[in-house]
């Protein structure tokens, strides 16, 4: 029971991270080619300025939760994904520094460099995160002692000895890139005005078409790569609501965007991300990290779970802390609600 609760609590943290940091990553990708002048760029960046750092906290808090609830998984996955994680860290560093410091340097080459870095690191991060999730779904070559070490790529096939990148995980990376860019475009549609908002809204349609195709391809690919991911769905047919949710939220994104209801379209996009991630988690449950080297080596919930005392106490402070956190977050978002006004927002 504890295992079940903590599995879904970690899942909630991941969903929280993707939905929130997702839009500022998407804005990072978009600002490379959507904005036409410095004012638009400042508006674009001011729309995420006060919140991106808080959004990234979900990654840290989620990582910490994963760490103490499932130490074996944390130890095995983090050391096994050593190289890509280090690259992710370097990208997070470059991204954070470039977005915060661009306003501290003069307009010109230095600022352009930081802007380019921000866009590039945002794009690469979405691809890495998508590929990371796909790696977990595909499984890794776990040794008998519960550890593994993945090279960046081998023969690009998701066989028993895959690399971080193969055709399946690349699809995962692309899904994340397109989904989060679209998510960011909807955020910009809400937060900006005039021509910029119109352009952001217009770009949603082509992104949406690509996303629909990629979503279907990734679902099919997942079934091919890991047929067992369907077991939970067939055992509990009610949970087919998840793929239905994915499809219908995709439909409502398009519908609301066409009707110029950006807030509803953005919420649909949040729901889409939620269902995609929840669907992936449910496909895995109760496995946390499947082994490509034989199901007896899978890292499962019961193998990885922390001690009972830790988890019982954790439930209390985690619940309390997250209620508080959601309170501040709601407060900050409410203070910055509405469209960005460059005369009021900035530092």
């Amino acid at each position, binding site marked *: 029971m504890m295992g079940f609760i903590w599995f879904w609590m970690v899942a909630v943290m991941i969903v929280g991270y993707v939905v929130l940091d997702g839009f500022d990553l998407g804005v990072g990708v978009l600002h490379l080619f959507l904005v036409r002048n410095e004012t638009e760029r400042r508006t674009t960046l001011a729309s995420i300025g006060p919140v991106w750092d808080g959004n990234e906290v979900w990654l840290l808090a989620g990582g910490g939760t994963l760490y*103490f609830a499932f130490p074996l998984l944390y130890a095995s996955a983090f050391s096994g994904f050593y190289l890509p994680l280090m690259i992710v860290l370097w990208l997070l560093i470059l991204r954070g520094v470039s977005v915060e410091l661009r306003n501290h340097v003069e307009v010109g080459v230095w600022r352009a460099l930081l802007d380019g870095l921000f866009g590039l690191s945002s794009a690469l991060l979405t691809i890495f995160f998508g590929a990371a999730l796909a790696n977990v779904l595909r499984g890794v070559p776990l040794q008998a002692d519960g550890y593994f070490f993945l090279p960046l790529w081998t023969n690009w096939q998701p066989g028993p000895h895959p690399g971080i990148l193969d055709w399946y995980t690349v699809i995962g990376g692309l899904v994340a890139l397109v989904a989060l860019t679209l998510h960011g475009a909807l955020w910009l549609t809400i937060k900006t005005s005039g021509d910029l908002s119109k352009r952001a809204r217009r770009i949603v349609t082509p992104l949406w078409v690509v996303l629909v195709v990629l979503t279907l391809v990734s679902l099919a690919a997942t079934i091919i790569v890991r047929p067992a991911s369907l077991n939970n769905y067939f055992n509990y047919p009610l949970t087919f609501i998840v793929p239905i949710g994915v499809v219908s939220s995709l439909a409502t994104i398009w519908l609301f965007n066409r009707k110029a209801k950006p807030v509803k379209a953005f919420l649909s996009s949040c729901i889409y991300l939620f269902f995609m991630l929840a669907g992936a988690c449910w496909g895995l449950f109760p496995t946390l990290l499947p082994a490509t080297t034989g199901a007896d080596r899978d890292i499962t919930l019961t193998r990885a779970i922390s001690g009972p005392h830790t988890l019982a106490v954790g439930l209390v402070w985690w619940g309390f802390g997250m209620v508080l956190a959601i309170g501040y977050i709601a407060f900050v978002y409410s203070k910055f609600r509405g469209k960005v006004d460059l005369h009021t927002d900035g530092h």
Partner: protein
Amino acid sequence: MTAELIHRLHFAFTITFHYLFPQLTMGLALLIVVLKSVALKTGSEQWDRAARFWGRTFAINFVFGVVTGIPMEFEFGTNWARFSRVFGGVIGQPLAMEGVFSFFLESAFLGLFLYGEKRISKLMHWFSAVMVFVGSWVSGFFIIVTDAWMQHPVAFDRLPNGQFEVLSFWQLLMNPWGLLQYAHNMTGAVVTGSFVMAAVGAFYLLEGRLENYARIFLKVGVIVGVIASILIIFPTGDLHGKYVARNQPAAIAAMEGLFHSEAGAGLVLMGQPNEETGQIDNPIVVNDMLSFLIYGTTKAEVKGLDQIPHDQWPTALPLLYYAYHIMAGLGTWFALLMIVSALLLWRKRLYTARWALWALLLSFPLPYIANTAGWMTAELGRQPWLIYGLMRTSEGYSNTVSASNGLFTLLGFMGLYLLLGILFTVLIYREISNGPEAIAADSVHID
């Protein structure tokens, strides 16, 4: 080089570079609350601008702290997997609490503080500053709790699968080691913050510009600095040292260079520890002082390294000894300089005493060195243990990550951090050159 050494260097390098930023964040957060409080109480625009100036500096510093902090949590898993597997249930708890209780709070209110000044009332802006302070200090607390458990594990139980868990949440948080270390460490952060603020004030006065702001910075920096520089020695340093002496005799013996147990042990002020001969070369010693400092009597016996099995000696003994002596020596200098500066301030002579202004200006790097040396003392003193008495460092690193993979990413971090260091220096230099006047009152933008 062995994988163990690489993984140690990896963590040591990234955490040392990281902690250059949070120590200023935590110290400045308090000082900004002081500035904002005076501004709120007196309605003084000048104090508000002073707060805004330090807010900008704080923001730059904060970003570097955040981006260099994220790798720390990851490295527990990436570089120290065997340790994480066994102790994650304990260590992960305060780390997750830091995220949940501190980072959400800190990031939310920092966003409001930096971007929302015109969207919220003056009182709310002051409150945001207070919350940023609370968030950063709570964050420090959870990190110290984590480290304190590694130094002095309490209330633990070993599960059938070999993992450890803590049976008492409150004992984990109220670990006496942690409380003492927290008091000492946070005072250290305030020392850094106040020296930096005073140094910027001294810099402006020596340059003969921005005098009004310079006086504010000097006044706040010196008043807070003199308090912190005394507290860092007594009681926080004193109590922490006594606690270490009782609980990690090997660490204290190595820190003090005490190779032989002695009743009435002397305090070595200077000298070089010689591991081969087991003595201090060229020592300058204050007789009986060490016994007195630890036990309050000059007669007490202090355990030397000779009573400790050699395989439990701290592995980098001379480095530990030097780190500790540098910290203690600099701590003495901070107290002296700040007491003299505070007297001059009281006699209204500080602003014209150029020699004192030069001393304050040139001393600003020293608290960084002292804080770093202090942490080296704590962590090297714990060796050869990763968790004191429970797991050796040699049993904790990721053995699936080879030495050369570790070296590759260590070099990557070194290169990246070199860039960050240059960028930080340039940006802070510009902020200080521009000064508080450049930040217009009606618009907080500057391009």
